């Protein structure tokens, strides 16, 4: 059974058909890249999966369960987490708080128990802190010591990206949707991110769908590449096959005038 399955998804904004008839299957343990020129509908696809938009037609099935029509927080509870193209961190909160908030939905204690600090709540809170540190350790010790208590706005851009990825992991999701994880990073940091995404799968057991513009990153880690253009899936398959597909080349570079 595939982990995530999109069946003939359609989405229009007014007269603009942003996504038409896109089907996609993601198996457990895969890294799937979604690429395409600007405005191809990549981010819309992410927003459809995470419940920000509702598809006009079609089904989204996650672990055998229909999830279209759910709100974003319900989708997250089912086990899909995302990062954002232009960071959406809780800027004035500390790094630790940023990683604790996504675990809030798993809290079983009521708010009154939280105020009274019942033993169960204290235990849950400790568990949350442990998970937070565990997720941050994916990125080495740089966020672990004093930066843990610093507000996010003092962090460097790369550290913010890392924090956002740790935050997505902390939701307890099985499927991570990474929207341009290497945007704004220098080659060295991009390389590190590439390794980290691979470690997400190998060590963390996550399945990953990513939208990315840096082709060397895509080529290096993707098991499968999906190409969108004007909301239509024009190619799918191995990186090498896809980039040599004439349709894909046309979408990116245009047609040569004969």
């Amino acid at each position: 059974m595939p982990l995530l399955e999109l069946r003939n998804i359609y989405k229009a904004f007014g007269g603009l058909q942003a996504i038409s008839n896109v089907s996609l299957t993601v198996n457990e343990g895969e890294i799937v890249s979604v690429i395409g020129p600007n405005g191809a509908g990549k981010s819309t696809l992410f927003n459809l999966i995470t419940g920000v938009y509702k598809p006009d037609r079609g089904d989204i099935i996650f672990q055998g369960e229909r999830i279209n029509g759910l709100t974003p927080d319900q989708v997250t509870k089912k086990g899909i987490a995302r990062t954002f193209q232009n960071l959406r961190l809780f800027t004035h909160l500390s790094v630790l708080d940023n990683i604790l908030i996504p675990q809030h939905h798993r809290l079983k204690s009521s708010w009154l128990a939280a105020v009274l600090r019942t033993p169960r709540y204290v235990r849950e809170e400790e568990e949350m802190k442990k998970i937070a540190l565990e997720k941050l350790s994916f990125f080495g010790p740089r966020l672990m010591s004093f930066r843990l208590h610093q507000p996010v706005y003092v962090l460097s851009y790369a550290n913010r990206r890392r924090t956002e990825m740790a935050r997505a992991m902390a939701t307890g999701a099985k499927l991570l949707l990474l929207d341009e994880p290497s945007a704004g990073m220098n080659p060295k940091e991009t390389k590190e991110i590439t390794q980290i995404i691979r470690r997400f799968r190998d060590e963390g057991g996550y399945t990953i769908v990513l939208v990315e513009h840096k082709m060397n990153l895509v080529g290096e880690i993707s098991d499968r590449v999906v190409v969108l253009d004007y909301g239509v899936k024009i190619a799918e398959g191995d990186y090498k096959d896809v980039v040599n597909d004439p349709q894909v080349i046309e979408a990116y570079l245009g047609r040569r005038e004969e």
Partner: protein
Amino acid sequence: MRDYLLTLLSVGLAALALYFLTVSEGTSGLLSALTLIFIWGIAAISLNLINGQLGILSLGHHGFMLIGGYVTALLMLPARERRPFRTRLLSDWARNHLDLDKWLRGLGLDALANSIDAKFIIALFIAGLAAALLGIIVGAPSLRLKGDYLAIVTFGFGEIIRLLPNAPEVAAFTNGPLGIKGIPGNAGNIWWTFLALLLVLWFFSRLKFSSYGRAFEGIREDEIAAEAMGVNLAYHKILAFTISAFFAGVSGGLYASYLQSVDTQTFNFFVTFFLLVAISLGGLGSITGALLGTAIVVLVRVYGGFLEQPNPAWVGYLSGAVLMLAAFAFSAYIRKARRLRPVIEPKHFIFGAVGAVLLVITIAFFKQPWMQQTVQFFGMRKMLLAVILILIMIYRREGVMGRAEFSWKLIIGPREDIPTDEQRKQDAWLSNPDLNPGLKEDGDDDASA
């Protein structure tokens, strides 16, 4: 553990100081100012939960306080105040049955009914519950809106609630525009409000530093991200709204008891406005700030009276001169501290010049009759408050405390967010290839790639 003991110690010291205030002579003015600070502080802290921590502008707080005030008033009203000529708009049913005393005796809890303090606690709790219920009713439909729209809707609801007691049909429960008088003045005793404030501080700080408090702040920082991270927006917004309304009701009950009367003008929109000024002054999102801001505002209002006293005109000129010169010096000080050049901004010489001219005028014409005649400025208190607010907004927009919270760690450490030398060294090792040869190899790889 250390922090816990320090907190206990300072609460004990505060209680001791209060005790000496209550036993010594001539402190009734200060005590009533403190009572007001405590009551309004509770309201400000509860408003801060919505406006500061959840990041939603709500302007209907006076409505919740009014509900609390009326419920407390009705439940606590002693039998002699319930006679028809005193409360002639009140229906017989309300007069005879909305009585906590009767309820408790009906349940056979005579011991509770005999103690007015126990009754007051129960009445406050019921007042809070009534306000919280209203909070849900108001919140559920309106919290789907955002920003200005929500502010307008909450303001509308607040005004509806405020004007409702005047309506003839509702007057059967509220005594209409006459209001309810003769409420037992428990809250006039400072220990009541002090303990209530301690309880509220404890509750709200525990809430803020819990998972729920973090979820609220996440919603404030970025609603979309919070929702994407699994925070149920509707539930948490209504939860915060309800908790806030509960404590608004409690503070309304305390205030009604402090005044020993309540009517629709007791809780008009200026109450919410006053609270907003207080929490913006103190720092939106900070419990400490809310209390601090309330203290500033109440103290200016209570002790600002000397500004409105009649004085000879030269006092006005002299204080104008001093203020201007102080502003001049302050700007130079700020610019020096911020290492701006030139140290004295040319435009700011105007302040200095005006100040100097006023000073010269004061000295030169001191003996003149127009300098000695008595003048009086009304409304100076409010102006002072406005000036304080303007200065805060210009120089420290986030308020006195910002989002920071008072904590012992902030004062005497250890500060976890400031790296120790050890941590600094390790951090440099992580990023500097000269110190960390392993890093260098990676870097070379990148250069060739």
